[in-house]
């Protein structure tokens, strides 16, 4: 009898004690974990899928590199979604409510960076390692802010300092104020992050034949710094950082020997009107969709970022096509893919127009790279008076891009004056990095000390409504003036509503 009583008493006690320890056990070892070690935070950074892609339609369609052309529309109207045309004509009326914007993608990267910065003090790990991860997180944040400031804000000039910048998110909290700071404060924020990022001390490692570009490295930060100061028209700083970066990593891929066409046939049957099979010749870099191997082995890139075009429609404008020497420029040979419209469905009736193809149909590397550094250096040299040196610098790149059989006067650029040299170097820049940098470049060209490089973009295309392109009406003219307020692209209306009006739309 007594024994039973004891058992019962014990049973009651067991259940009555505080169960906090019992309930401390984590529900899952993998799927929902509070970051506890530095390794956890590093794993977040290892996931290149979280950071690599930049689906910025504003950049892809918003410049004269992209063909918003009535001839292409008449040949294959399906290459133009309404959104493509709206971005391509710098629309501000429909895009805020209808576009599927790039804006949230970067804020998610910023959230991850903030999560890392916030958790660093509480996770276990070596201090020196923590410092590296911290610098890397600041780099990611600076990078994203820079991207967005260049798309959603006016160019950073003395006159624009009080204009709308971006919300300055410093934590992961949803309670944090998300009012847009001034442009001046936004750039101060980027600059501060960049300075912290420059503390990163890490070589660009090679792992299994791939450059470990998915993680930040010293050279990646230097490359970004060069890009940043160039955008502020600070040529001395930009050149200095570009040279530092080139000192660390200057590999260039020789298109004469290290570039090739795909060995995989891509036959398309067209009706012209009779059936006929055409093989579309892609560069080998087209073959792998969503597998990063080719991108990581490319070798010229410092940091794994790529412009991502979900509609697979990088259609180069006639102007861009004409800027290449079509006989000798190997960039034209490999990246300008003839008959690309057949692949996109223009087979009956057949209509041929080329596409710009880098990695698969959607991706172009956009992180800082060796060619970008060379072109920054060349441009800065020219703009600072050493224009002959600048031409020489650009010619280093051309040696890797122009057919070895080309006569020397075609292979090498030459200039007669500083202004001529500037034009030549900027043309080279456009040929080398179409779609990726053009938007940024036009913004700074229109706001620097010279006017010879200004670009006023205009399009002749059909009018449209919020529902469709009015292909039956007469084409009209769309122009983006030199200092148009439309250079600050609209932010999504959904965010303005969801913020309860705290966020403000750009004024036009």
């Amino acid at each position, binding site marked *: 009898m007594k024994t039973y009583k004891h*058992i*019962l008493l014990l*049973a*009651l006690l067991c*259940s009555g004690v505080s*169960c906090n320890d019992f*309930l401390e*056990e984590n*529900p*899952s*070892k*993998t*799927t*929902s*974990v*509070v970051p506890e070690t530095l390794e956890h935070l590093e*794993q*977040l950074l*290892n*996931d290149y*899928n*979280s950071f690599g892609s930049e689906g910025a339609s504003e950049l892809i369609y918003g410049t004269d590199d992209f063909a918003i052309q009535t001839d292409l529309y008449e040949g294959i109207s399906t290459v133009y*979604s309404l959104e493509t045309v709206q971005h391509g004509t710098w629309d501000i009326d429909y895009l805020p*409510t*209808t*576009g599927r914007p790039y804006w*949230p993608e970067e*804020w*998610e990267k*910023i*959230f991850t960076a903030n*999560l890392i910065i916030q958790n660093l003090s509480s996770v276990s790990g070596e201090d020196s390692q923590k410092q590296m991860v911290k610098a890397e997180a600041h780099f990611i944040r600076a990078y994203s802010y820079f991207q967005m400031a260049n798309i959603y804000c006016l160019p950073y000039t003395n006159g624009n300092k009080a204009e709308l910048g971006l*919300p300055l*998110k410093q934590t*992961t909290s*949803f309670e944090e104020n998300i009012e847009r700071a001034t442009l001046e404060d936004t750039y101060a924020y980027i600059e501060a992050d960049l300075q912290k990022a420059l503390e990163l001390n890490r070589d660009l490692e090679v792992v299994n034949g*791939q450059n470990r570009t998915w993680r930040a490295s010293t050279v990646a930060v230097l490359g970004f710094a060069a890009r940043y100061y160039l955008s502020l028209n600070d040529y001395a700083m930009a050149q200095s950082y570009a040279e530092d970066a080139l000192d660390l990593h200057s590999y260039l891929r020789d298109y004469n020997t290290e570039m090739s066409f795909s060995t*995989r*046939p891509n036959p398309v*049957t067209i009706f012209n009107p009779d*059936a006929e099979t055409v093989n579309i010749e892609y560069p080998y870099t087209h*073959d*792998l969709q969503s*597998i*990063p*191997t080719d991108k*990581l082995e490319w070798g010229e890139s410092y940091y794994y970022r790529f412009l991502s075009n979900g509609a697979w429609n990088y259609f180069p404008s006639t102007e861009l096509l004409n800027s290449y020497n079509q006989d000798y420029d190997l960039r034209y040979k490999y990246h300008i893919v003839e008959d690309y419209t057949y692949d996109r469905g223009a087979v009956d009736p057949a209509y041929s127009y080329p596409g710009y193809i880098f990695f698969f149909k959607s991706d172009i590397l956009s992180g800082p790279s060796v060619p970008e550094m060379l072109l920054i250096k060349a441009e800065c040299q020219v703009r600072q008076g050493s224009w002959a040196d600048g031409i020489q610098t650009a010619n280093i790149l051309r040696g890797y891009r122009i057919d070895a059989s080309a006569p020397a006067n075609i292979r090498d650029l030459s200039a007669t004056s500083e202004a001529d040299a500037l034009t030549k170097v900027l043309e080279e820049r456009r040929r080398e990095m179409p779609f990726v940098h053009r938007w940024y470049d036009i913004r700074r060209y229109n706001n620097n000390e010279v006017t010879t490089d200004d670009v006023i973009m205009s399009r002749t295309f059909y009018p449209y*409504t*919020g*529902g*469709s*392109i009015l*292909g*039956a*009406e007469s084409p009209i003219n769309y122009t983006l003036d030199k200092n148009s307020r439309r250079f600050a692209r609209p932010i999504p209306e*959904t*965010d303005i*509503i*969801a913020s309860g009006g705290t*966020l403000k739309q750009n004024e036009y």
Partner: protein
Amino acid sequence: MNEARLGRITDEERDATLTRLSGLDNKKQIEKYLLQSPITKQYNVSVSGGSETMKNNLSLLFEDNKTFFKGDSQNKYLINYTSKIKVNDRLDFDFSGMMQFRDIQKNSGEQDIFGEGDMLSTIRSLAPWDMLVNADGSRTDMSYLKYYTPNLNEFIPTQAFPYSDWSYNPITEMENRDFSTKSLNSRIQAGLNFRIVDGLSISSKIQYEIFKTNTENYYNENTFDVRQFVNETSAWNYDYNTVPTQNLPSGGVLQNSEATINSYNFRNQLNFNRTFAKKHTVNFIAGTELSNRVVSSTEYPNSFGYNDETLASSELLNPVQSSTMWNGYPLQYANFFYPFNITPTSTYQESTNRFFSMFGNLGYTFNNKYTVTGSYRTDASNLITDDPSFRYNPFWSVGGSWKAHKESFLNDVEWLNRLNLRATYGFNGNVDRSTSFKPLIALGSSLNTYTQENTATISSFGNPTLRWEKTKTLNFGVDFSLFKSRLNGSIDVYNKESFDLIVSQSIASVNGTTNQKFNNGKMYNRGVEITLGTVLPINGNDIVWTGSVNYAYNNNKVTNFFNTNYQSYDLYSGPTTSYVEGYNANTLWSYQYAGLTNVGSDANPVLKPSVTGEGGDPITVIGWPQGNAAEYMESQGTLVAPTTVGMRNSFKIYDFDFSFIVTGKFGHVFRRQGFNYNPVISGNTQVNEKYDEVANGDPNQILPIPTQEGRYYFYDRFHPYMDYLTEDASHIRFQEISLSYSLPSKVVSDLGINALRFYAQANNVGTILFNDFGEDPEYPKGGLSLQSSLTFGMNLNF
């Protein structure tokens, strides 16, 4: 037809083939070779015995179950033992043990992540002319369903690949698979019950359970799946004269995985039940419960070149990193194309759920008439939080009842036998275990294939205002019995108001995410439930009618939910994504078909089908609709029936019993089957029976089939969600009719047995539908339809 268009065959050859195909019908073959009649056989033995102080019961069960598809079966073995021991006057001890073994064969195939591979989808994808067996009884080669065979034969050196046989036949597939899942489930339970004083007892119960499942899916090399896999993973350079390089070993593939669930549960309870001075009755229960459940699973790497006889398997013939497949893709891609996984590592997962509850319930009844009750409980679990006290949240309820018929002033009312009025009011709650105050990350389960590094992603962005979901319930009820208990029933009216519901809400993407779970949802559920019943002797005890009807009506509405912009797929793929403030939680949202719209000019019109967009502007069905879908889509009613009615009648006529059950659901809607607008890329494009309705339809009323449309692939984002497909889902079902005959007790006792009964029962006898298309809303076309069944039986008790 494509071959004719390409000029490879003549128009005459094309027409001859079309004529031949139109004369074929594979329905009988499918029934004969792929389907079987489902039959369940069950054998039961049970033994019990004991004495005054001890009772034992042992039962054994074997069940053999065949389902609809050939190659599928299920065997179940069950042993159950229970024992009750009366230790002394105050203490009882009971023990039970259970062990169940199940062996499931599923050779008909299993659904893969693309929703294909199981027999039902295989059969669905067959067109009537896809014959399984030739006239001479040999299996047909249906590889044309998998490849565009004219091109395969013309451009690919099929003989040079590891398997020269490229044929496919679903019967062969089924015969050459051995998919088996074996599970063993054991449970033991022990309990003590100790009576302390009169009316007061304490009980303690513990249970432990272990559940192991092992799945082995073996495909031998005669399956198309394996031959295709080995052939297509071979490297080849597109040259007809080149011999492909084999990467995967020839032979079968074995997939093996296992899962274990370990759980225990410990419960202690104090009971008190006593009446004092014949007037005051007190009921009291208090207790605690603790449970722990760990689920772990392991998926082993696939074994290739596996032979079921020798149990031998081989490694890959070439390194994964550097090899390519026949289409030039890297071998690493094989996981995306085929049902096999070439990753050489195991995947492990483990999750732990722990719960702790405390509860108490106190009731007091005065004079057997007036009762008040109060209850309290708190449930806690191992959710992730900074603040341990957050895990506990107390909930309570109070109630009262009045047995009015026991009042003296109602004693004289003869027709009233019972009248009981009830009311309860209380709160209960629920917590979302998937989010936490802090952001959480998910760790990758294996190394990234390309970088060979571990990765992690953000799995929750944090829910800093996380609280318990709460529901306030107010319920009034009355139970009654009238006219000497000939009519009895109950009426209940309730109003449940849920608040702090965790809903996924729009926030500014500046915060890192556009959707986050917050405790911001509110909804109500109001309803009434009425039950009426009668037991009516028509001729003494020989003929008796027992009838009951129940009626339930429920209405719910989302009263608070903030979402700034609904995408159309949020709304049509609901319900969880389709909550819209002011609407029923189960609202069906559809596109409003707007007919053809001119996207060209007046002089040169280009007509495209469209749906109504924001502000009434037409949106063509060849692009993503933009704008707020809640503005332009139409709410067409609720998917869940607000009104349900059930009726059961049984008649006892001497030794016969006859009964039937009828149920009805009313007031809701469903989407009927529409034309399937075949996908563009699929190898086999079959057309369903709704072709006529589209082909003969007015293109301004129903989405037409385009003759030339480059963006046809957008159609399937629209056509299944059109408003014209929505129909009334009301229906009445005759669920059961049964007739039984019991041998009169006199006859039975002469035979030396206790009872003998024969019975016949028919289930799912018929359905009355309220839509014009003859479609059962609960058994949509293209799936298994509701099967009638007939049961005959005999019950014998010794």
